[in-house]
């Protein structure tokens, strides 16, 4: 078993121009990505934007049509087998055996990876999961959230150096999600690198760095603050009466790109801050409180998504 990483391995994922087409349709469009050791890297984007496809190319499940790069120092085109040994991949859809019990599933994976102290490793991960009492239960009978937890335990069993997690927390309750993220940060502290996709904003904010893709194109990359900054989005909040009518009026005004209701508050955003400000000043009345606030990640992503869709359609 080759555990030795190649030198200059502080960059765990380093790919350039990765492209994938399905039936002539470009699904991942010359993506460049760098992920460093010990980093939790968030991979975000709307449904069908190519996140799963990109991850599959990283771990050798799909072959890229174009592009080069390394994962853990191994060539993603020619050394897929070496990558597979050192990567833990958690698929978006539950992909363990539903007709095998929890313990049998873990045991199977442990055997496939030829783990030395197999029984111990399985026992430990059962304890960590808190499932040692139910270890005989069939995986298919677990609730959705528990399936996710089992899958995470299974893809950690061989001590991978890189975790590729495809929506690992979909359908998991808030407490379990928090525990999950605490665990991820612990693992990252020990030098494990994590690439994770999610649709939750709070999770995105817990990542060290983010990438946002839509329709296969990388639209923004960096820390949360950097990503928010890069779109130069201005957001105002409004509180007061008759917000529904106000929002309908606002929607068609120049400079207004998004109007979102949060309970008793409206968030109004646009990228052209001067145009937005002049539009709003004409509407300001004493019955409403107006305040300029920091744009949230969600506002930014929705803005990115809207504009990219325009690009896509105009072609």
């Amino acid at each position, binding site marked *: 078993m080759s555990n030795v990483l190649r030198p200059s391995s502080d960059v765990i994922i380093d790919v350039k121009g990765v492209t994938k087409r399905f039936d002539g349709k470009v699904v991942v469009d010359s993506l460049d990505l760098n992920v460093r050791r010990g980093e939790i890297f968030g991979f975000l984007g709307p449904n069908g934007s190519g996140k799963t496809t990109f991850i599959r190319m990283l771990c050798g499940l799909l072959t890229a049509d174009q592009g080069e790069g390394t994962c853990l120092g191994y060539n993603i085109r020619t050394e897929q087998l070496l990558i597979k040994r050192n990567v833990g991949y958690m698929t978006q859809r539950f992909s363990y055996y*539903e007709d095998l019990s929890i313990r049998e599933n873990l045991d199977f994976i442990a055997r*496939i990876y030829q783990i030395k102290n197999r029984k111990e490793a399985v026992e430990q991960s059962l304890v960590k999961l808190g499932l040692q009492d139910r270890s005989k239960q069939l995986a298919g009978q677990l609730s959705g959230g528990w399936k996710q937890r089992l899958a995470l335990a299974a893809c950690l069993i061989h001590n991978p150096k890189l975790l590729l997690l495809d929506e690992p927390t979909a359908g998991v309750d808030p407490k379990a999600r928090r525990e999950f993220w605490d665990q991820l940060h612990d693992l990252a502290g020990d030098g494990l690198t994590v690439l994770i996709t999610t649709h939750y904003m709070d999770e995105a904010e817990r990542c060290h760095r983010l990438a946002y893709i839509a329709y296969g194109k990388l639209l923004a990359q960096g820390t949360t603050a950097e990503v928010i900054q890069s779109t130069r989005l201005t957001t105002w909040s409004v509180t007061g009466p008759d917000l529904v009518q106000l929002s309908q009026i606002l929607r068609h005004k120049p400079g207004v790109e998004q109007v979102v209701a949060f309970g008793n508050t409206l968030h109004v955003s646009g990228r052209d801050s001067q145009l937005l400000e002049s539009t709003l000043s004409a509407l300001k009345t004493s019955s409403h409180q107006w305040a300029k606030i920091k744009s949230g990640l969600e506002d930014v992503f929705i803005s990115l998504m809207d504009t990219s869709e325009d690009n896509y359609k105009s072609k």
Partner: protein
Amino acid sequence: MSYFSFHRLWAMVLKEFIQMRRDRVTFAMMIGIPLLQLTLFGFAINSDPRHLPTAVLIADQGTFARTLAAELRTSSYFEIIEDAHSEINAHTLLQKGDVQFVISVPIDFSRKLLRGEKPEILVEADATDPAATGPAITTFKYLASQAFDRDLKGPLARLKQQPGPLSFNVHMLYNPENITQYNIVPGLMGVILTMTMVIITALAITRERERGTMENLLSTPVRPVEVMMGKIIPYILVGYIQVTLIILAAHFLFHVPMIGSLVLIYCVVILFIAANLAMGITFSSIAKNQLQASQMAIFFFLPSILISGFMFPFRGMPIWAQYIGKCLPITHFLRIVRGVLLKGNGLHEILPELWPIALFVTIAMTIGVKRYRQTLD
């Protein structure tokens, strides 16, 4: 970097066993199908086979013997493949299944015929498949009696009187009472193994693909050969259970004589099981979903019962069908099982049927491993 690991193979085998145990219905089917078929097949389908290979031993030098041989040659029922030079030679041919009949004309045939002494013609028939022999013998008697019509003229015409100028001594070898079950039941072994083994494994990989577990399997270091063999090995065992069931039923229910060595059957059956499993795995790696896979299995199964010599006598089929039949492992396996059980064939006699099956395994397995997609592309 290891390209094959027994640990990983063993992991696959164990997993398959557990899954097999959990899937009670399928497991019950694998045991139930042999029982059902054995009880249902109490009948055989007759047909009119032609060009049956026949050896002729002519000891007589007279004209009538030659007339008889010529008559047989022109008939479409018999194909005189050899004027056998000795009795031993002829019987070896019969034993190996190279000929279905040996016809012996005695030394003083012509003389006895002229004297009206009704010379006796000895017909030895391989009756393992009664459907093939019965009609042929009737035809032979008719042909032989008619053969001399032209020659028996004038004063000799009196010899034509009923019940004919000849007498026949027919020896039904291997299955003297013409019991069709003797032929059908050993044949069922081939049919049942083909049916269950091909379908089960045809679904094996497509099921992983459909349930999404393939994506996981592909992301681990497990190799294609390990996956395939891991899926084949547990079913070899199931195949042996089926074989045992059929042999028990053949013995206790149908009283099929078992002249040959059961050990030999058990030894060679593994090759046939492997052939079917390899075929199934190959379908599995080609099909996109489980429905396609089971359709492919049926597509393979139909010729396996229709043109293998199971339902209809092999020699009754047109030549092109015989060629296709020869490509199927079951055709050869049927000859082996019938040969060993009914005729007492040994390894030497079945060798010519063994290597085609081995060749089939190799080809099917190679295609399967080649077609197994290591990516999701």
